[in-house]
């Protein structure tokens, strides 16, 4: 039987996208705070502009992760094929990758919120 699944050559890029956004958010938050404190505010200066930048980065990161997670969720909600026992068809892979993308998106969202948590409590550069 001809396999009509459009995802026959599906790649893994989407799977890695949400953790990549988390990693970029983590890096950018630390760089933003470090540059602000080292070059502008001084060792005990206010952190407010860096906190605003971290808030904006966090909103952007969570929005990106949500879009990716939604895509993953849609792919894993496809109806399972009848009589599939081994789950080794292209469609099964499609569903599995969608589910893994969704789970990694949830994990990345939690990690992003945890990383941004420090900015919620720290008010200056000390």
């Amino acid at each position, binding site marked *: 039987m001809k396999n009509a699944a459009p995802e026959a050559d599906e790649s893994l890029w989407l799977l890695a996208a949400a953790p990549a956004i988390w990693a970029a958010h983590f890096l950018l938050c630390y760089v933003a705070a470090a540059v602000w404190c080292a070059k502008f505010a001084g*060792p*005990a200066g206010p952190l407010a502009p860096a906190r605003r930048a971290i808030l904006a980065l966090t909103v952007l990161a969570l929005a990106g992760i949500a879009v990716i997670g939604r895509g993953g969720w849609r792919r894993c909600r496809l109806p399972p094929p009848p009589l599939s026992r081994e789950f080794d068809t292209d469609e099964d892979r499609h569903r599995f990758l969608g589910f893994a993308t969704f789970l990694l998106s*949830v994990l990345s969202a*939690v990690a992003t*919120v*945890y990383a941004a*948590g*420090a900015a*919620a*409590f*720290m*008010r200056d550069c*000390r």
Partner: protein
Amino acid sequence: MGLSSRTSPRVPAPIACAAWLSGCAGPQSALDPAGRGAERLAELFWWMAGGAAVVWLAVAALAVYAVRGGARRAGGGAQRALIVWGGAVVPTLVLGALLAYGLSILPGLLASAPPGALRISVTGEQWWWRVRYESPGEAVELANEIRLPAGEPVEFTLRSADVLHSFWIPSLGGKMDMFPGRETRLLLEPTRPGRLRGVCAEYCGESHALMAFDVVVLEKPEFARWLAAQRRPAAVPAGGAAARGGELFGANGCAACHTVRGTGADGVVGPDLTHAGGRLSIAAGTLPPGRAGFGRWLAKTHEVKPGALMPHFGMLPPEDLTALAAYLEALR
């Protein structure tokens, strides 16, 4: 010998637990706090331990439930709910709450000292501590010993002269790294008098483990008297072996590296020895105080502290070593 005679006597669990927990006490324990910062950190530790216990018990209970087939009997929906709530939602909420609690205490730990607070600068050097009381009043330098007033916030300015070190008095608060070419700050507030111990908490070379210091928390009047005494020049011994040791101290070049205020010795390479005889230990917490300790340090310097920059003086006749040790012991 029968098996029964080999078994250890049964100790009631509460007594065993109390004996085990007594290991958490002592002069160098973050779980036996004697300062504001250490109190917050000890609370954080116990909350973290409690949170970890809750997560562990929940996971263990779920494992038992799964092995006994409870989830299978409950059906697919219950299985999924168990995985989602027990495996993801609850641990995320517990860890999030602990993270928020930990972060919430950070600003207090990193606050600046109020104006007029005692300020002490400490420089980490391989493998000892240069301690300088900057205020109040005229600055005074000593080594490997810090005395603090109870109930007063103290701001430490921390530096390194060579490699990375880390300044840590576990009973008083958190640790702070010391970097060459950069200053870091640490606020500590002792809450009760007592004798404590500080250490270097960052590996800094072969004698890293021998880089400790004594910390004494005193009532305020007693601290003021002690600081005033430290500002005075050394009491130079007038006669006997100690006086001869003073002459040897100059003749053997010790003054090139060490300061003894009130004498001609004004070297700044090594520790200030003005009141070395009154300190609670020798060689950064490595040897007990007293003449024997000084004698051992002078003769076996590199056995006591491998890699120390100070040359050993084991080539001197024993009577000279004894005189030098007597001189150092008399510097109070």
